[in-house]
């Protein structure tokens, strides 16, 4: 009986094996040398959607750009750390608090490493986290609205570079300092750096349901530079790895002085142990001053709170918290493979890739096979933790990502290429040139336990001769490769905006279905919202005037305002009454010292205007919203400072 029922199953299984063989052959044929038209494989026909979203950091633009793969089409630029006149982000009264820091209003940022939130080690498409390098901050972008909804400043940190990578259940987002600094900051001679400067590795907890971040604790480290980081996966879950350079602790001419040691370190941090120490009260509460900015979707308004202290664990005093893995020649990238077994440290001045073994590391720790210590932190023996070396793979290895077939892909900055190699055997399988000077590369899900090995894209620093010239300044370039076959194949060049420092990519099907189309007007809790034309009004309070204004195709209400005086501070609170996808309205008034606004359906945004001249001044809609967009306008009358013009507002009054 059992045999009979099993037989069809066996046949079915065989059939599946056969058919999948055929499929494999087909896709091989496609990506092989005799492949079909390359254009066909990146062509997304009009009206069709891309298979992946790619979130590419804008580097010095402070923004995050959204691209489609395989087309390379840019969909959106999301302002994160920089003011953005297109939408009024950082200019509107509601979003100004997002850019508040302990240094005051910082209207610009250097956005580096986006990372997508994860559940069970797989990207879940809820949030993108991204770090700001210059004034250390971590931001969270909500992927239902594609808006920045939270920014937290990192105290005791400088050059927030080894950041913002997430653990496999988004327990923590990490923010490691690039520059070590005096902690707490103080006036001291720079030449006394060695032994006095410290590096802080920050762990930001993420509340599972809403994603709210909190700076949970910091680990105080020796005064090295912490370059990049990667969380453990699977068996190494609970650990975080940070590459270091300048273990020489030099403070001047680092290009020479920080390249003296043959080996720097990868610092392995046991964050589960850190949690134990926190629970056991082994932390020190240090005074601090840092901003936590949260955008509330109901009030459409951000609030900035200054936080005053931080919990600090000292790595030199707490055994078992940190171990140092010697890694040759100033490692830059620090990448963990999807199984969590291998930690790749790319010595950027070396030709070899060094791969550490997590199992060997644990074994060495358990057997106390130490090779000295640095500031009380045990150093493991290089040979004891080494899994293997990819020999002479290229020049200047930087970053590694992984596919779903047990291969690593490493970028080589100096030799401008991507090299594919096999995990375990460490043999080089393929190499493809990039154009030119490649930095990071991305494989969708390559940072997680479940990469999808179909595409890889490399992000280059130099673009010359790839596109029509645009003067001395060229946008950087990304290059898309098909990695489904044995050999990588270049499919597409596409320009990126700002510096494409790093990117995270995800299947569109994990994000698109949750994307919001409108904000519900009835859920709008903005204190100055007018939810219908009948709720519009103008209220004077001393020299401050609040205008509760609405927009709908194709008018403002009110559109005639009188009784404003020179020296007033006029707040235009504009509510877009539309409840239709993709119908924003704009708002701009002459001589505005902030920026225009772009107000989404159901949203309220506020622009402040301080009239300096008497007159009747126009305002208008900046977003081509309808056939009568051009008529979407109004006037505001400004009288002299002492005038007694009565406050008046109207819309649609018969004037005959």
């Amino acid at each position: 009986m059992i045999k009979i029922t099993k037989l069809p199953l066996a046949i079915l299984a065989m059939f599946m094996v056969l058919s999948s063989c055929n499929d494999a052959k087909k896709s091989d044929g496609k990506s092989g040398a005799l492949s079909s038209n390359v254009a066909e494989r990146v062509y997304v026909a009009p009206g069709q959607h891309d298979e992946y979203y790619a979130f590419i950091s804008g580097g010095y633009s402070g923004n995050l750009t959204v691209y489609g793969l395989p087309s390379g089409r840019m969909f959106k630029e999301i302002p994160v750390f920089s003011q953005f006149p297109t939408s009024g982000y950082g200019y509107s009264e509601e979003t100004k608090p997002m850019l508040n820091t302990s240094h005051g209003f910082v209207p610009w940022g250097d956005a580096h490493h986006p990372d997508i939130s994860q559940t069970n080690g797989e990207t879940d498409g809820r949030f993108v986290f991204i770090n700001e390098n210059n004034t250390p901050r971590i931001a969270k972008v909500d992927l239902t609205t594609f808006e920045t909804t939270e920014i937290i400043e990192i105290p005791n940190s400088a050059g927030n570079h080894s950041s913002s990578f997430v653990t496999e259940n988004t327990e923590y987002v990490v923010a490691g300092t690039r520059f070590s600094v005096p902690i707490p900051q103080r006036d001291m001679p720079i030449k006394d750096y060695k032994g006095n400067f410290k590096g802080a590795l920050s762990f930001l907890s993420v509340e599972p349901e809403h994603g709210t971040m909190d700076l949970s604790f910091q680990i105080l480290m020796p005064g090295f530079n912490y370059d990049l980081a990667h969380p453990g996966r699977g068996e190494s879950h609970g650990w975080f790895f940070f590459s270091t350079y300048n273990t020489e602790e030099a403070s001047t001419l680092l290009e020479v002085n920080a390249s003296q040691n043959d080996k720097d370190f990868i610092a392995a941090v046991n964050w589960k142990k850190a949690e134990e120490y926190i629970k056991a009260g082994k932390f020190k509460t240090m005074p601090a001053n840092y901003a936590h900015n949260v955008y509330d979707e109901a009030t459409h308004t951000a609030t900035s709170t200054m936080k005053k202290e931080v919990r600090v664990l000292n790595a030199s005093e707490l055994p078992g918290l940190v171990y140092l893995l010697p890694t040759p020649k100033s490692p830059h990238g620090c990448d963990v493979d999807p199984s969590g077994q291998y930690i790749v440290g790319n010595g950027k001045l070396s030709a070899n890739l060094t791969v550490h073994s997590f199992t060997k590391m644990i074994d060495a720790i358990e057997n106390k096979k130490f090779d000295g210590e640095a500031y009380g932190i045990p150093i493991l023996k290089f040979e004891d933790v080494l899994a293997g070396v990819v020999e002479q793979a290229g020049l200047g290895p930087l970053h590694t990502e992984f596919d779903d077939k047990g291969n690593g892909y490493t970028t080589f900055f100096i030799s401008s290429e991507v090299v594919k190699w096999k995990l375990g055997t460490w043999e080089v399988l393929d190499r493809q040139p990039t154009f030119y000077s490649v930095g990071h590369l991305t494989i969708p899900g390559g940072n997680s336990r479940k990469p999808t090995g179909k595409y890889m894209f490399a992000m280059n620093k130099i673009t010359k001769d790839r596109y029509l010239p645009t003067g001395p300044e060229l946008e950087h370039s990304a290059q898309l490769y098909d990695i489904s076959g044995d050999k990588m194949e270049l499919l597409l060049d596409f320009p990126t905006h700002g510096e494409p420092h790093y990117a995270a990519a995800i299947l569109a099907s994990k994000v698109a279905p949750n994307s919001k189309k409108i904000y519900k007007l009835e859920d709008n809790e903005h204190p100055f919202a007018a939810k219908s034309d009948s709720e519009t009004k103008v209220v004077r309070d001393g020299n401050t005037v609040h205008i509760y204004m609405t927009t709908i195709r194709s008018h403002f209400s009110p559109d005639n305002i009188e009784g404003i005086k020179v020296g007033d501070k006029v707040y235009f609170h504009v509510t877009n009454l539309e409840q239709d996808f993709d119908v924003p309205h704009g708002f701009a008034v002459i001589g505005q010292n902030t920026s225009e606004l772009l107000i989404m359906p159901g949203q309220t945004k506020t622009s402040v205007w301080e009239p300096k001249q008497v007159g009747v001044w126009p305002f208008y809609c900046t977003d081509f919203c309808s056939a009568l967009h051009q008529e979407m306008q109004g006037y505001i009358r400004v009288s002299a400072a002492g005038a007694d013009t009565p406050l008046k507002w109207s819309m649609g009054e018969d004037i005959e």
Partner: protein
Amino acid sequence: MKKAGIIMIVGSLLLLGLFKFPLWNIMLGAPQYPDPLGMNIYVDGIRGVSEFDIQNLDGLNHYIGMKKIPKPEEMWEFSVFPKVVLGMSLLGVLLGILGFMKKISPKYFLGWFVLMAVLGILGMYDFNNWLIDYGSNLDPKAIIKAYNPDGSPMAYKPPLLGHKQLLNFHVTSLPHTGGYLMFVGMTLTLIAYWVGKKSTQMQSKR
């Protein structure tokens, strides 16, 4: 006649579907509305197919000076229709029971059907008149004034049944679930009449 009575009862009860499902549906699609806007017409009011369809239709209609889509309290029909439907359904059930108990002749079933058909036609007539008024009684200050080739002002009456192009919109008007249930119900009452007639003929032959 027992079987006929049951069919009559079932047929009449199907009318009650109108309290749950829309009678009619009008969909309006245009290139810039890949998800078409739509309204469902229930016996007690008009509702959007998606949450904000009515608001968005009103927003578009203001360009051509069309009145806002009426709220239930703005049309007497939406308070009378439910009563008529409920009354006819109860009457049909009563007739069915009486037929089941062989107290009345199947001709009453036919009578119910004819009455229902007359009321239905009156309803359609009323609905069509409303569509004509809605589509042609426009605000003289309308932003867009379109004219037919003969020079007469364009009307924007949606079709009673079927498809029509109105400016850039494709408008499709069809019965919806409640409507189909009503048609099936009415057909069943007609079948009840035939079945009842046959069984009484058989009985009289015996």
